[in-house]
Each structure stands twice: as C-alpha cells, then as structure tokens.
C-alpha cells in the first residue's frame, strides 16, 4: 500500500508534503532524546516490515505495522514513519519520490492515532493491555486504508470502491497485525514494561 508517482494531482502532493513536514517537525520536537535508540529500532522494523509479504489470491500485500509503531513510540511515531517511508521509496522503490509526503501522512497519522488510542485504552491488567494492543494494531490498518482511499479520491478515483477493494485486500494483514501488536504488547509487558511506559511518561511530562 504505497502511492506511486503521478497518481495524485500536484496540489495534493504539495499539500500532503507540507502536512507531513509539519507533523514531522512537531514529532521531532516532542521526542525525548533518550528515546532515540528505541525510535531507531522501531523505524528499522517499520522499514523492513514492508518486505514481509502475505500472499492472498493472485497478488500479495505486505505488512505495514503503523499500529505497532504508534504503540511503541507515541508521538515520536511520525518521525519514525517518515524516515521509513523515505528509505522505502529510495531503496525499495515502494511508492514514488514525489509521493513521499502523501505516503508519510497515510502511514504516520494512523500511527499517531493508534498510539493515542492504545494510551487511552490500556489498563493495568494484561488482558486489557492485549485488547488495547490488538485494537490499536488493527485500527492502524483501517485508518491507513481510509487514508489511501481519501488520497486516491483526489486522483479521481471512487472513494467507496477503492476503500472496499483495499480493505478486502488488507483484511489478512489487519488480523496478522492485530496479532503482532497483541503479542508485542504482552511480551514487552512481561519482559520490559518500561518500554511501553517510557514514551507515555515522557509525553505526560511534556
């Protein structure tokens, strides 16, 4: 799920690039420098996750993990997604270079929203945490699909048609990512809970 060059009209390309820059600046300002190694690791995971293909029918879709990025990084998620999208476009030729802004918005804003949702949904108990993680992981995909459809509408596509098609194609990815998010959250809760707490505490302090 990447937008290629020349799909979007120029005004939308420029607009999404400006929005992405604004979000990236905000995200960078809100980032605690002590979180930098975590951000680097999660960005790397986001960057590489797009190579994991899930075969469905004649085509295949790949993992996106905006939800997991949002859960782990909170407000710093956008900068991680931006970096990942730029490198995917440059090295993997996933998505066009002019569409980097659009792709960053399409992935980064869902990441921020699912991070926020996870933060507001999580409870002290493990089942509640897992539920929050799975919901946030699935929501990331749903929001990314909605964002894709919204962006493609500006390119002259039919919103419902694109949204339905992309949603059907990404249903397996949705379930897989919910499971990944739930597993990640429960594993981190048991092994290193401060990794889940740290970013949120840092955000609470700011």
């Amino acid at each position, binding site marked *: 799920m990447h937008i290629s060059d020349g799909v979007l009209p120029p005004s939308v390309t420029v607009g999404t690039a400006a929005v992405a820059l604004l979000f990236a600046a905000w995200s960078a300002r809100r980032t605690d*420098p002590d979180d*930098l190694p975590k951000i680097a690791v999660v*960005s*790397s995971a986001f*960057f*590489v996750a797009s190579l994991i293909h899930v075969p469905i029918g004649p085509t295949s879709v790949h993992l996106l993990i905006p939800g997991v990025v949002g859960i782990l990084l909170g407000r710093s998620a956008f900068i991680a997604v931006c*970096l990942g999208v730029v*490198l995917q476009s440059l*090295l*993997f030729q996933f998505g066009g270079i002019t569409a980097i802004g659009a792709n960053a918005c399409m992935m980064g804003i869902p990441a921020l929203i699912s991070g926020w949702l996870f933060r507001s949904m999580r409870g002290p108990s493990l089942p509640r945490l897992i539920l929050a993680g799975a919901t946030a992981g699935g929501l990331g995909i749903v929001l990314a699909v909605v964002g894709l459809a919204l962006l493609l509408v500006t390119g002259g596509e039919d919103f419902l048609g694109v949204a339905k098609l992309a949603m059907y194609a990404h249903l397996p990815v949705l379930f897989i990512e919910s499971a990944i998010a739930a597993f990640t959250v429960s594993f981190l809760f048991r092994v290193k809970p401060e990794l889940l707490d740290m970013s949120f505490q840092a955000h609470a302090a700011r």
Partner: protein
Amino acid sequence: MHRHFARLFTTRSWSCVLLLGLLLAVFHGPAFGTEEAKEPTEASASPEERQEVSPAPDFGEFSSLLDRHKVQLSREMAQIRREIAALRDDMARPGIKEVFAGVGYILGLAGVAFYMHARRERLSLRKKSDSTIDGNPS
C-alpha cells in the same frame, strides 16, 4: 675424451635432448598435422558437396528443415525471454543489501541525532558552569 662423452650423456643432457624433442614436436607437430589434416578434409568435403549439389535440389525438404529450425529457435527465444523477465523481476525486488542499507541509514541518522543532543547538552552545561563561576567570584 671418453670421459667427456660419458659426461655428455648424463641424465641432464638426456633430459635436454628430450626437451628439445618435445619442443620440436610441439612447434612442428601441429603444423604438420593441420596441413596433413586439412588436405584430407578438403578432399573429403568436396565429394560431399558434389554429392549434395549433384542431385536435383529438393526445395521442399529444405524449407521444411528451415521451418523446423525456425520453430525450435523461436521456442528457445521465448524461453530465454521469459527467463530474462524473471531475472529482471528478481533484480527489481529489494534484497538483503537494501535492507542493510536502510537499517544502516536509520542507525546512522539516530547517531547524528544523538551527537546533536549531546553537543547541546554539553554546551548548556558549560554555559551553566561559566555562569556559576561568574556568579560566585570567591
């Protein structure tokens, strides 16, 4: 004198003779061989050609042979073209090299960000210490 002759025919001299012989064989042998070989082939080829040419030319057989060749060649070409397409597909697909490049970029950028942060912190610490020294001229 006899001894001298005997020395001449020691193993070393024998080996020299052998080497000379080998060299001769190598440099002259093939030349003779090819010259000898060429003549018979020419001699044998000409009767064959004569045999092929001498009967009435069978164009039907010729064209069917050519057609068969053409079909076979086109089949092989199609196979090669398919293989080239598959290869191009494989090459376009990002591999381990790109993955490591990207991860390296990310870690490097994180390192740069760390450096900037540390520098800012150090400068602010130095400023603080300067101001405390200025503030307390004991």
